[in-house]
């Protein structure tokens, strides 16, 4: 096999262990051939097709070089980067390259934010693969003075030596005409040192060299977000969103900020980004569904029921028809007597949830506006007997019984309500008293 790369590279790579985490044999084989051509020893190359086995191998063999697919079955190769960075804390000792079919903007942004050194798209031409591998290795072997200094500072940061880390980043600043990254790390050190104002100053200095420096923008945004300067933070995020793809972490904050700053119209735009994400954490799902609910409520306040229901419907989808979420949405609509919309939302309950307390309470609420009083009482008493009544069910039944001139039965219901909702007791007796005095 023809060797590629310089002798220096061949020597550099020869002693390294390599993990190729790739489910497709045709691709893992070509990657393996390329690594061998670059000087890797065949016995030092390990191939795994799934994440669990790959993680196990990282622990056992401690590979310095990992080449991984983004999608390993239903799991994600980036977890390997995290594991590798714990095993080899010195970034000079490790290389992580994604070779993936995933061409989504968010995946690229996420990888770039992590400890990933290169991103290659499949299908690739062989020259491209070799060139990118060589470029990544070359950068690791021969970093510029500026990069070395930054790394030196990062090592000090890892050792929690903030003072020397800061001074190292200050030295790095003098080594490059546009040292935005050094500024970023100065700011980052100040942030760790609990000095957010100084941190903000350095992030902004980094932006002065490069107004669209991603890390500086992100860091400035994070500080403003933490300082609850929502409007300013929102302006920064708009700049980021206009120039870069959004990672899942940032998207969560964008949703929150849109709510805090009453930019409800932007929620729609962010929802589109959300639907295109490859990875959606539980936390992100919670934030997005909550944001869609808030946006819906805002629209209701503006009397835009149709747009509100659109947000609610999306929220229900994001929350995967969660029973509690649907209940919250429907209760909100019921309060505004939007029965027609409630009828639509109630169909979204999963079949298994149709025996639930929430579902039956909603049915009762809908019935209230349509059925005659005796029927309402019958249904309400059934819910009370089965322990599925809400405060509102008790209230409605007591009022209905008084209306039907059945005070003794009403008292019986109040007695039961007192057991489940003691704080209601006085309120319900008051209903009887008012009826008597009337």
């Amino acid at each position, binding site marked *: *096999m023809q060797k590629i790369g310089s002798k220096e590279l061949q020597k550099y790579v020869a002693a390294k262990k390599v993990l190729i985490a790739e*489910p*497709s*044999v*045709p*691709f893992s*084989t*070509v990657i*393996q*051939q390329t690594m061998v051509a670059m000087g890797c020893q065949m016995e030092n190359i390990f191939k795994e097709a799934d994440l669990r086995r790959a993680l196990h191998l990282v622990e056992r063999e401690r590979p310095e070089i990992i080449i991984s697919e983004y999608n390993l079955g239903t799991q994600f190769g980036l977890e390997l980067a995290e594991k590798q960075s714990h095993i080899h804390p010195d970034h000079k000792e490790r290389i992580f390259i994604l070779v993936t079919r995933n*061409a*989504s*903007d968010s995946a*690229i*942004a996420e*990888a*770039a*934010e992590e400890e990933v050194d*290169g*991103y*290659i*798209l499949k*299908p*690739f*031409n*062989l*020259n*491209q*693969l070799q060139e*990118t591998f060589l470029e990544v290795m070359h950068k690791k072997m021969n970093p510029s003075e500026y990069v070395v200094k930054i790394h030196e500072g990062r090592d000090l940061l890892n050792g929690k030596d903030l003072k020397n880390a800061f001074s190292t980043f200050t030295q790095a600043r003098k080594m*490059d005409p*546009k040292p*935005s*990254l050094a500024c*970023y790390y100065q700011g980052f050190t100040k942030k760790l040192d609990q000095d957010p104002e100084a941190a903000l100053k350095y992030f902004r200095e980094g932006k002065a060299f*490069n107004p*669209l*420096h*991603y*890390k*500086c923008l992100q860091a400035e945004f994070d500080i403003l977000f933490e300082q609850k300067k929502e409007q300013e933070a929102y302006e920064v995020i708009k700049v980021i969103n*206009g*120039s*870069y*793809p959004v990672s899942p972490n940032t998207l969560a904050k964008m949703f929150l900020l849109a709510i805090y700053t009453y930019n409800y119209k932007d929620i729609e735009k962010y929802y589109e980004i959300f639907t295109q994400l490859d990875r959606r954490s539980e936390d992100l799902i919670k934030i997005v569904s909550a944001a869609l609910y808030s946006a819906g409520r805002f629209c209701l306040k503006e009397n835009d029921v149709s747009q509100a229901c659109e947000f609610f419907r999306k929220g229900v989808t994001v929350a995967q028809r969660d029973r509690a979420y649907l209940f919250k949405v429907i209760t909100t609509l019921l309060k505004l007597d939007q029965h027609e919309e409630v009828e639509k939302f109630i169909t979204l309950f999963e079949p298994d949830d149709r025996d639930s307390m929430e579902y039956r309470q909603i049915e009762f609420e809908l019935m209230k506006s349509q059925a005659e009083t005796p029927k309402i009482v019958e249904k309400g008493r059934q819910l009370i007997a089965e322990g599925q009544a809400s405060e509102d069910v008790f209230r409605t039944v007591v009022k209905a019984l008084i209306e039907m001139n059945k005070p003794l039965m009403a008292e019986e219901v109040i007695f039961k309500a007192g057991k489940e909702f003691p704080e209601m007791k006085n309120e319900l007796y008051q209903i009887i008293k008012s009826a008597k005095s009337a």
Partner: protein
Amino acid sequence: MGAKKLNPLEKDLEIRVTRMENTTTGTDLLKLTEASPAHRVSALLNKGVKILIPHGNCPVGHFVLVDFQIQMSGKKFEMQATGKVIGEEKVDHSHIVELEFKSFDGKLWNRLFAVIQSRQDQVSELFYKIKGK
């Protein structure tokens, strides 16, 4: 300058082999592998491909006929190529062969190469911009 997001039309790019026959021996090399991922091309070469052959023999010097299905820029294309095996390497229970095309649609192949290059360039630009300097 911010980085350009990847052209949506270039996100979906796929190249598959739908038929592969060793014309020297008359053997159908994909017969038993319809559902196998082996019908994906491993890597593209300037005038050829590296491809995994799960079954059958395909030694250096043999000629192969390959039908490709290419999806790029939102469109589907088909291309038939004949090539000569110029390299072969055994991998586990199968082997990777290197084919040098003898007849193929050069225009389409060059276009495919250009799209692959362009999307990798866009991805690298975006990736390194986000990493920052």
